[in-house]
């Protein structure tokens, strides 16, 4: 029954609505074109790698140190990618409960099953949306003659203003792939849980706040930091440790799922907006 519920959620919440996918693909393409044009100025002799493309999307920003000389600017691409993904996973679980999901819930006779099914939906959705960025970047890189490797070039580090250190890693697979995915998934679960307490609109405002605070404070307890590759401890002294990020994301996920489960078992399902 659980797998039927998961399939129902994937079919109704993910497979429907081609416009959102087209939009994400279009946005990824624009970001890739933008990067490719900039790359000509960064390094006209060499071609960028797939890793460079992904670094451009998920790099975020360096640590912000307030001073009269430096004005804060949040990273447009990173925040756009994160908030658009957060928006896409915002509405479906809450809306489903007011609609057909009620029937599914009653037929399944299991609130726990329903809840976990939605959690699985969140994880799959984040994977799909991030997957669009990964795939479009890969295809674009190949089509434009880029290197099909995850190696990040020194020029890319220089472009981002990262100090080159002797033991700098050439690949950052965990930071580029796993951590943003985990961070977004855990925030998605948190967002979904909050939606049942304070409605989706307000929980989205909380997500926005978390991302802005993450931009401002390079603090290991502010989860958004782990989704910014530039703040990794591998690239910056005192940066974010991947292990901490994974643990924090898992903790946030567990707490969100757990609280949500406890609450949902007693939740009155009324037709409310």
């Amino acid at each position: 029954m659980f797998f039927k519920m998961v399939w129902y959620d994937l079919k109704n919440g993910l497979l429907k609505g081609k416009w959102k996918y087209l939009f994400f693909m279009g946005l990824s393409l624009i970001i890739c074109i933008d990067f490719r044009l900039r790359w000509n100025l960064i390094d006209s002799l060499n071609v960028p790698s797939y890793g460079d493309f992904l670094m451009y999307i998920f790099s975020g920003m360096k640590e912000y140190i307030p001073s009269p000389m430096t004005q804060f600017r949040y990273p447009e691409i990173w925040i756009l990618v994160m908030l658009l993904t957060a928006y896409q996973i915002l509405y479906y679980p809450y809306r489903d409960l007011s609609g057909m999901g009620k029937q599914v819930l009653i037929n399944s006779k299991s609130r726990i099953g329903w809840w976990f099914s939605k959690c699985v939906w969140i994880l799959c959705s984040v994977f799909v949306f991030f997957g669009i960025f990964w795939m479009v970047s890969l295809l674009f890189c190949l089509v434009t003659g880029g290197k099909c490797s995850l190696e990040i070039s020194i020029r890319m580090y220089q472009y981002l203003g990262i100090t080159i250190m002797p033991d700098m890693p050439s690949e950052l697979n965990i930071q580029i792939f796993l951590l943003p995915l985990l961070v977004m998934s855990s925030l998605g679960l948190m967002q979904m849980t909050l939606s049942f307490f304070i409605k989706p609109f307000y929980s989205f405002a909380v997500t926005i706040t978390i991302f802005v605070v993450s931009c401002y404070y390079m603090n290991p307890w502010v989860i958004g930091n782990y989704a910014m590759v530039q703040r990794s401890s591998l690239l910056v002294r005192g940066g974010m440790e991947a292990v901490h990020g994974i643990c924090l994301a898992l903790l946030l996920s567990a707490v969100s799922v757990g609280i949500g489960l406890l609450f949902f078992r007693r939740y009155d399902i009324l037709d409310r907006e």
Partner: protein
Amino acid sequence: MEDEMMKNCFFTELKKAFGNKRFWIAVLVGTVISLLSAWKTLERYFEEMRFRQWQIQYSPDDYMNPDLPIYTVYNRWIGGSYGQVELDIFFLLIPILAILAYAWSYHEEKKSGYSRNVVCRTGRTAYFFSKYISAFLAGFTAILIPMVCNLMLISAFIPAVAPDVYYDIYNGIMTDNMGFQMFYEMPFLFLILRLTLDCTVGGLSAACVVALTFFIRNKFALMLAPFLALLVIQYASALWYYYVSEISISPLEFIKAGSRSSSAWIAGGYVIVIFLLSFGITMWKGVRDDVF
């Protein structure tokens, strides 16, 4: 008779707009953020003043210049300051708070069928005109109140010293920002205009939602559409800045201090175009479309 009904309809909508719970939630959230920002600013100000006093006490000859223009209302209030997380949260949330105030009302009334009850009594023109204006005013006010609260608190402690161009690094405005000259020559007028612009962006975000209700059925997509559009424009502005011209075209930039170069023409253009489009669509479709 029609004027009377228009007046009745308009005041009814205003009462609903300013009497509803969500408007006050928006005002409360905005005010909490703006007052947090003010508190942080004042904390830093008092610390700085204490330090200065100590410096002057122990070495008066070295610290003859009190450097008054570093801290002035004009560069420390929410619309003039920068480099604070509360400020960026506030300005990013402006469209969200403004929309929360009353922009959702037409969608709800259309969906429930309440709009039928009103339209039959007042006519389409009165209803849609009142709806648009009240959504705009509610959005405008939801931003105005927090900003004014911040301004009042800051000005209660920090003097309104005229900004000095020699201290330009402390002001969130450079030579390529709009109103640069006015900021130094007529700072109070600049403040009023900045306040008006920020609130107008809020009001127009809310008014856009009324117009978009004719096209978008999903309530969340509808309410978040202006915010998401602003994010996309923010990225587009970064591209524009890099490839075309070193001037910002993003409303999220020119509503706050510390932004990239901006132009009053672009800001004014946005206001006019968005107003004409949203108002035009609302009135045109409102008057022509079937009411179900």
